[in-house]
């Protein structure tokens, strides 16, 4: 295992080292110590490596990740896993705003709570939150799945496109064009797989599904807000 002291060696050296890993690298497991809330840790990775971050991070941890598996042993600042393409990011603590924003693929697991705008404009990523999520989550979410084992804040799924939202607890309010939808067997199957992938022991039958009413898909003045 490669151990990297971020405080001593610096961000540029860290990301350069991680970017240098190719598909057949034998340096497959990295440990980053002393992250101390630094921004842009392990961004733009594109190799099948595992990265353990021993502590909390600042903004954009794991941004635009491809292939890599990141495990944050702490909490993360805003925009973790933003625009992720593939791979997996697991956060043991809480996540600040915009977690998984615009993510195109891969899996983001947040074992604590996620703040506002979780999954904003998501484009295929799967996000599993063990706790609660804040307001305006899944705003303009295009595709992918957002699973919330706790409660959701105000305006969930505002201006939603085709993303699926599964919430076990309460939803403070739904955003424009977001409605509760029937939980059919295929959705149960999808959710069960997501819960397993997210290391979550909740039962799929306890969740409600939310999706787009599709009334905003083509502009109609009667649906304007």
């Amino acid at each position, binding site marked *: 295992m490669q151990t990297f002291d971020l405080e001593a060696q610096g961000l540029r050296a860290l990301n350069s080292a991680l970017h240098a890993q190719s598909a057949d690298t034998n340096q497959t497991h990295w440990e980053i110590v002393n992250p101390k809330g630094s921004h842009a840790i392990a*961004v733009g990775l594109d190799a099948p490596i595992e990265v353990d971050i021993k502590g909390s991070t600042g903004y954009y941890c794991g941004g635009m990740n491809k292939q890599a598996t990141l495990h944050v042993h702490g909490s993360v600042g805003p925009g973790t896993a933003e625009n992720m393409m593939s791979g997996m990011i697991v956060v043991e603590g809480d996540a600040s705003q915009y977690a998984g924003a615009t993510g195109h693929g891969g899996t983001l697991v947040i074992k604590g709570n996620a703040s506002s705008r979780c999954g904003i404009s998501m484009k295929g990523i799967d996000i599993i939150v063990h706790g609660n999520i804040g307001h305006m989550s899944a705003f303009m979410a295009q595709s992918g799945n957002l699973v919330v084992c706790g409660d959701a804040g105000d305006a969930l799924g505002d201006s939603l*496109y085709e993303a699926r939202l599964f919430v076990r607890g309460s939803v403070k309010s739904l955003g424009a064009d977001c409605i509760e939808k029937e939980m059919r067997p295929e959705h149960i199957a999808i959710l069960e797989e997501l819960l397993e992938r997210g290391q979550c022991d909740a039962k799929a039958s306890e969740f409600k599904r939310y999706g787009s009413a599709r009334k905003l898909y083509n502009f109609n*003045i009667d649906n304007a807000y």
Partner: protein
Amino acid sequence: MKDDTTGAPRTMPIQSATFSNPVNAEIRRAAATGIYDIRGGGAKRKVPHFDDLLFLGASISRYPLEGYREKCETSVTLGTRFASKPIELDIPVTIAGMSFGALSGPAKEALGRGATMAGTSTTTGDGGMTEEERGHSNKLVYQYLPSRYGMNPDDLRRCDAIEIVVGQGAKPGGGGMLLGQKISDRVAEMRNLPKGIDQRSACRHPDWTGPDDLEIKILELREITNWEKPIYIKVGGARPYFDTTLAVKAGADVVVLDGMQGGTAATQDVFIEHVGQPILACIREAVRALQDLDMHREVQLIVSGGIRNGADVAKAMAMGADAVAIGTAALIALGDNDPKWEADYNALGTTAGAYDDWHEGQDPAGITTQDPELMKRFDPIEGGRRLNNYLKVMTLEAQTIARACGKNHLHNLEPEDLCALTLEAAAMAKIPLAGTDWYPGKPGTTY
């Protein structure tokens, strides 16, 4: 005119200047449909512009250079502040961001071909990077937009510069829209959305909210791209002094400033005509911000919005810009609004030169469309050749003016080479009114 029954003279019918025919037509259209007018392009209203400035030329105190014999450099390097690989262009006229989706694939290809032949850059738009565009553009600027349609790290790494779009001149504070008529299978796939639905481009970025956040966002983008790429920040002509200051503070290599004449693929007419400032009013304020920060020429300034010819280029640069960008003019050079399609324009209820319903996807010139039949009308090789010709003419014109002012590089043009024809232009451009050494608000004056 006389009364039919009495023969007495009658008052001549007078059209109201306030309730003009176009105004009344819009009232009737709104009353009939209940929907605001959506169109493409930039502001059509007359605003103070580069035409309201003149060059003074040489005189006894200014020594001119000989016509096209003495050298007048036109090159520009963009991104010298932080990027390890700045962009070097042969000419200071770049192609502004226009999306695949709004434009056809062949049109994007033509922009790349023309820009490359002329030695300049082109720019992606909302919707991501296409192979046509990357393949034919020697220098390609990749826009980082609020929607993040098609955004991915591979394209970030294969671009030559990154342009973070905060706003644009046609609609500062507004997002964009691509109506369902133009959402082909390919456009839908690139944007991760179903075919045929209206696609909203958000008005603000999803994962940062202010200049402090933006600074961190830029750090992330630089880390992902190994600190190689110049990072531009594009703003609409709203508060140019403060926006430029904040862009520099956030870490921009280049500031792109777009006035209200700058075009858009589609937005509300009321937005285009009533929000934002003319580019003439923005340039000197942005330059002042750069000078106050001791960053003029260290952070380069690109201006856009109504650039049409070499005189406009020279005037923008004399006011302190490092380069300009063109969008609408480039489309016209490709063949947009060409009178040869007049019958087709008439069939759409418009006329060549006025056509602006680009969002409907029925462009007779085959440029702002995704309709395969209409796209066949446009030849990207010929379009590229025309754009190259146009860019060359603009450059030659700007050089001609610069030589007449005694300048051996376009960057040596300066405000004192100019005078203003109107009080409004003098005030906005901070250029002395012709025949005086004064402009409204000039420091040291009280009026």
